Structure formats: C-alpha cells, structure tokens
C-alpha cells in the first residue's frame, strides 16, 4: 500500500462560481478556518450583485459579503478564471486553473462547484423565425424592471392587448422560470390591463411565495392553460403567429393571435462547466445540470468524494435559495474535513500485489475515481465508497473486499451446498445475489413476512450489484443450483451510479457462456428491485421458480 502519510486532507477549499451561493460558501468556509480560493469563471467581484435580479436586499448582502471577504488574509480571489481539470483524490486535489494571463496548478483538499447558469433560447428551434411579437422571458423581465417609458416591446403595446406566456412547454421549466413568468404575467396584466393567457405544463409552486403569486395571478384574471403532453401549435401568417390548441378541460379547440408572445428561455451550465463535469467524471443529470438524477447524492454530494455541487448548478433555483445552498455546501465540506480520519483500509479493501498486472481495468470502471496508480495500483481510503465494482471487474481477482472476498463467498456457497444435500430433493434450488441496500432489505422483509414460497432459495448480499462476479454465478451453478438470480437497484438509482448496469452486462456475458456450454441461459436472470418492493420480490422469485421447473 501507499504509505498513509502520502494521503492528506489539505485545509484549502476551491470554490467555483460568481454568484451569491459561491460567495456565501466561501464566507462560511473562512469562518470555519479554511483557506479559500474563489474562482469566478466569468465576472469580477463588483458585478456579482447584478446577478440577482428581483430579490431586493440581496445585492447589498452580496456586496457586503464580497467586501468582507476581500479583506480576509485566508481568501484569494481569481476573477475570470476557469477550472480546466481536476486530478488527485479527496483531501488532495490538483486543479488546473486558467485565466486570461496564465495557467497554473493549485492543490486543494475539497472543491465546491457553484457556478451560475446562463440563459439558453430553447424555443428558437420550435418556432418560426422570430417576429416582433415574440420576446424571451429574460428580455421581458429586463424591460419590466426598467422605467415604464423606456423604449421596448412592452412600451410599444397598446393597453388591453392580448399577451400569451409559454412556460415549461419546450423544456423542464423549473420553479425559478415559473416565478419569473408569473411575476411578469401579473405585471403585464396590471400595467397594460392586458388579457393574459398562460400556457404551461405543470404549474410549479413548490417554493416560498409561489402559491400566493399564482393565486394573485388568477385573481387578477390571468387565464391558465395546463397541458400534459401536447402544446399549442404555431401557425404563422405573415408577421403574425397564431397559437392553436385544444383546451384540456373542455376539449374545445381555440386559437389566439397574441399581440405579445413571451417564451421562457431556460438556463444551462456554461460549456466550460459541462466539459469540466465530463472530464472530471462528475456526471450531469438528464437536463444537463450537475449532480446526476440520483437521490443518493443529495443534497450536495457528487459521485466523487470531496467535490460538492451547490446552488443553481444543480438546476435553476430561486435567488432566495442561494444563501442556504452556499451555507449547506460549506457545511458539507466542513463535515468532510471533520469526518472519518485517514486510516489504512487494507483490512477493508486490498489489492493483491502478486496478482495485479496493473491493467487498470479497475481505474476505468471505478465510478468514484478512487483508484490511482504509481508503479502499482492503490485505492484511496477517502474516495473509495466500498461498492466493489473494481473487485467485480478485475480480471485477475486481485482486488478483494472484506466480507465479500472470493474465499468468503465460496465458503458461503459451500455451506449452502451442504445444506441442500441434507434436504430432500424436490423444489428447484436457486441462489439470489443482490445489492444489500435494495434487494437485501427487501429480502429480509420478505423473509420476516414469510412471503418466500420457494423453499430452497438462498440469498447472498453484495455491497453493490456491480460486485457480482462471473465466477460467483458459475460456481453457484456448479454446486447444484438450478438457477441464479441477480437483483440490482433500479436504473439511475445505484449509489455507485453504474453498478446495476455493469451487473446487467455481466449477466448477459454469463448467459452467452452458458449457451456456448449447452446450458439454457434462462437459468441465470437479472432483475431490478428497490428495497420497498417486497411483493415484487415475491413475484420475481415465484416466476423464476416456475421457469426453472419448466427447464
């Protein structure tokens, strides 16, 4: 093993972002006594306050925060600086920073990613070429916040005009967009006495004050059209765009040629941040925000220990949540530094020096980037989350995990074989391998409720379904099991991100081998199961038992 003193927790934190979340996180970390580096990808400190439209009082807060921080000895500020690459492990990252003048490395113990989002015009593709009638929500908000006499689309409208808002119909449309749109709708209604029609998917009100705002809109006479799957069609006639749609409640087709058509813009991570997330293997969720859509990482975690995501980077949010997010992320970092000390882990996870050929399969498969190599492979004690995917993948079986090592599983199989020999033949015998966090929990519950009808079924828990080894499956069959079932967490719900996918792929591989050897591949089956679906487990077992009987 690498000597422990070579791993360390540097009490230095890199915070990336130019908004209030990043500022607040930096300020809290200084308060906790860490050295803080703040890299703002785009803007300088003075512009920070202009980032927070619509929340009175917050710009001042941000300005004060920035001034206080700037004077602190443990604080370094890097304006217009991007993070290009992240190397190393939790507690000791090497980051590559680039500004206009230079490119350099810094060593930090933890990283908070709290970048602001940039507007994206989602609807340009779905609309006919833009017309004077159409305006993006961002621009409308800008116009509404400037004096009423200022020239612009709003100023050119007559009173009692017809306005239509399209929100969240072309993308996800989060609460922040919804709040902006509702505020703008009510402003247009009041300022121009306009007839306002609001077309959207689900009205999102799960944020402070939004329900009230929605109610105010209704009282003011804004009419809402809520669509499930369809959305209005755009019919273009010269310079005018007409919306055609069916009212979901009446089933009656309507049309409207609004004098003003407002379309929400949507917000995304900058391209640089997206490529950093990709190169540092942090993963993005389906909508392209940081933190993969996986509840196990909430609220600030990512799949790499020591790197945290905060604020709008995880999806558009209300400005009022920015401070809370910053503080939360700072606490998460503090918790990481205060958390489990660096301890040798060779009794938990070990790499057999004699067997390892440094093929680095483990390094490529580790979802947590916990594996490094010098002249041989080592596993970082802080970054490793003990999922065992590396051990499952290792072609030499050089990596072993305590409790789930090859000899231990083999012993368990031998015990099962002895047990089966004692019992009379009859029911099909099969072995279930499963993630102890999902299938394991379901199994225990099914057992205590006496739901398992099959008499000769044995369960072997694994730290993650991704640990399942080809050898395990074949050995299970060789000791007399009539079938082997592998249960993994449902898709996008694996704590180690891809453990379930790897397990599925390995089962498919095993099935190929079985076919080749002339054994029916249906004797090995892969299923997904979450911990609370005890009844599904019962059905899966019964169904598998039935299949095995047929064979």
């Amino acid at each position, binding site marked *: 093993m690498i000597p422990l003193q070579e791993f360390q927790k540097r009490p230095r934190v890199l915070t990336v972002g130019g908004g209030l979340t990043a500022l607040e996180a930096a300020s809290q970390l200084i308060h906790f006594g860490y050295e803080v580096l703040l890299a703002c990808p785009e803007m300088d400190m003075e512009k920070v306050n202009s980032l927070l439209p619509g929340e009175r009082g917050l710009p001042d807060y941000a300005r004060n925060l920035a001034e206080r921080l700037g004077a602190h000895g443990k604080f370094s500020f890097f304006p217009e600086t991007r993070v290009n690459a992240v190397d190393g492990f939790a507690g000791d990252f090497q980051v590559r920073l680039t500004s206009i003048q230079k490119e350099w490395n810094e060593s930090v113990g933890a990283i908070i990613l709290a970048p602001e989002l940039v507007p994206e015009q989602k609807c340009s593709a779905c609309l006919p070429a833009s017309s004077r009638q159409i305006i993006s929500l961002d621009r409308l908000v800008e116009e509404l916040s400037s004096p009423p006499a200022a020239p612009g689309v709003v100023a050119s409208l007559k009173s009692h005009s*017809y306005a239509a808002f399209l929100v969240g119909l072309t993308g996800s449309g989060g609460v922040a967009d919804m709040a902006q749109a509702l505020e703008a709708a009510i402003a247009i209604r009041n300022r121009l006495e306009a*007839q306002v*029609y609001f077309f959207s998917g689900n009205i999102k009100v799960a944020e402070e004050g939004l329900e009230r705002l929605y*109610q105010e809109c*209704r*009282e003011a*006479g804004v*009419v*809402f059209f*809520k669509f499930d799957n369809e959305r209005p069609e755009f019919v273009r006639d010269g310079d005018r765009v007409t919306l*055609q749609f069916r*009212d979901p*409640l*009446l*089933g*009656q*087709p*309507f*049309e*409207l*040629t609004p004098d003003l058509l407002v379309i929400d813009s949507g917000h995304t991570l900058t391209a640089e941040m997206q490529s950093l997330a990709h190169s540092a293997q942090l993963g993005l969720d389906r909508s392209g925000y940081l933190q993969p859509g996986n509840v196990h990482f909430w609220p600030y975690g990512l799949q790499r220990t020591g790197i945290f995501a905060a604020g709008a980077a995880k999806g558009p949010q209300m400005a009022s949540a920015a401070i809370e997010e910053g503080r939360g992320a700072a606490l998460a970092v503090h918790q990481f530094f205060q958390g489990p000390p660096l301890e040798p882990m060779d009794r938990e996870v070990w790499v057999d020096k004699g067997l390892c050929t440094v093929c680095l399969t483990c390094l490529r498969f580790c979802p947590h980037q916990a594996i490094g190599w010098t002249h041989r492979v080592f596993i970082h004690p802080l970054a490793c989350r003990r999922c065992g995917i590396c051990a499952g993948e290792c072609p030499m079986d050089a990596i072993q995990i305590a409790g789930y090592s090859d000899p231990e599983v083999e012993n368990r199989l031998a015990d099962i074989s002895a047990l089966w020999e004692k019992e009379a033949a009859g029911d099909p015998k099969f072995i279930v391998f499963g993630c102890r966090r999902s299938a394991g929990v379901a199994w225990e519950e099914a057992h205590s409720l006496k739901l398992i009808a099959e008499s000769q079924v044995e369960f072997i828990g694994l730290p993650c379904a991704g640990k399942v080894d080809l050898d395990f499956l074949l050995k299970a069959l060789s000791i007399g099991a009539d079938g082997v079932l592998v249960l993994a967490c449902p898709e996008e719900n694996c704590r180690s991100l891809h453990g379930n996918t790897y397990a599925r792929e390995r089962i498919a591989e095993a099935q190929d081998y079985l076919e080749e050897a002339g054994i029916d591949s249906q004797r090995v089956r892969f299923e997904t199961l979450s911990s609370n679906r005890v009844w599904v487990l019962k059905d899966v077992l019964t169904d598998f038992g039935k299949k095995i009987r047929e064979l």
Partner: protein
Amino acid sequence: MERIDLKKLDPDFKHRVAQELGGEHIRTCYACGVCSARCPIEKIEPEYNPRKIIRMILLGMEEALLKEEFLWHCSTCYTCQESCPQGVNFTEVIFALRNMAVRKGLAPAGMGAAQNLLCRQGRMYEVGDFENEKRQEMGLPKIKSDPKDYKHLLEKE
C-alpha cells in the same frame, strides 16, 4: 367542434361573475374537479359539469353558457360548495348565472311557467280539496292560496 378565437370571447365575463353575490372566488378555481366528482346531478346528466361550467366562465364563453339549459339542472344540494378546496361557492355561482340568464331573457320557457304559477297561487303545486282533507285528518289547518308576497317579489324583477 369549431375552433373558437379567444379574442371573440368576453374576457371580462369572469370579473362580472365575480361581482355577483357568491361569485367572488370564481377566479381561484384551479380545476381540480372535486365539484364535478361529487355532484349528484352530473352522475345522471353528464352535460351538467361544474368544472366545465367554471372553465367556460374563466374563458369568457358567456353567450354559450347562459343559454344552456343545464344551468337549470342544479338541485342546489351544495355538495360542490362544501367540498371545494379553493372556496369557490359554486352553488351560489349557479344562482348568479341563472340571474344573469334571466336578465338577458334566456331562461327556459318552463321557468317562466313556474314563475306564473308562483304569482298566481304562491306555490309550485296547487293546494286543493284533496290536500286539505288530508290535512284535516292529521289535525292541520286548511291552506288557502295567497300569492301576495310572491307577487310582490317576482314582479320586481
């Protein structure tokens, strides 16, 4: 169904309903449909659908709505009103709509006949010798048709 231009409807209709007694909260409806789900009339006569009626108000379909005969199907059991999470007093809204329809002369002919009956005898059903004999057997006093108060009320409109 023919496509309707929203601009040809009357967007102020909802505000006018809101000004009627009992119609104040009509604009807060978010179309959850509890009123329709619990309405006993809707079970027999699906045309009468409180949620759809509110939707027609909000969209300003005044003409189409006020001439509908189903406005008069409501039995005023108040179930919708009792179960509305948004405080829409729908039974009161129905009264408001009926009043508006009457003002426009859109009430169905049957309603006029009923009004005449009330004017003439003070009751929807005439009390004759048969009913009075029954009352006598039960020790109740005889009833005479006396439309005075109703006449006063109904002729005002």
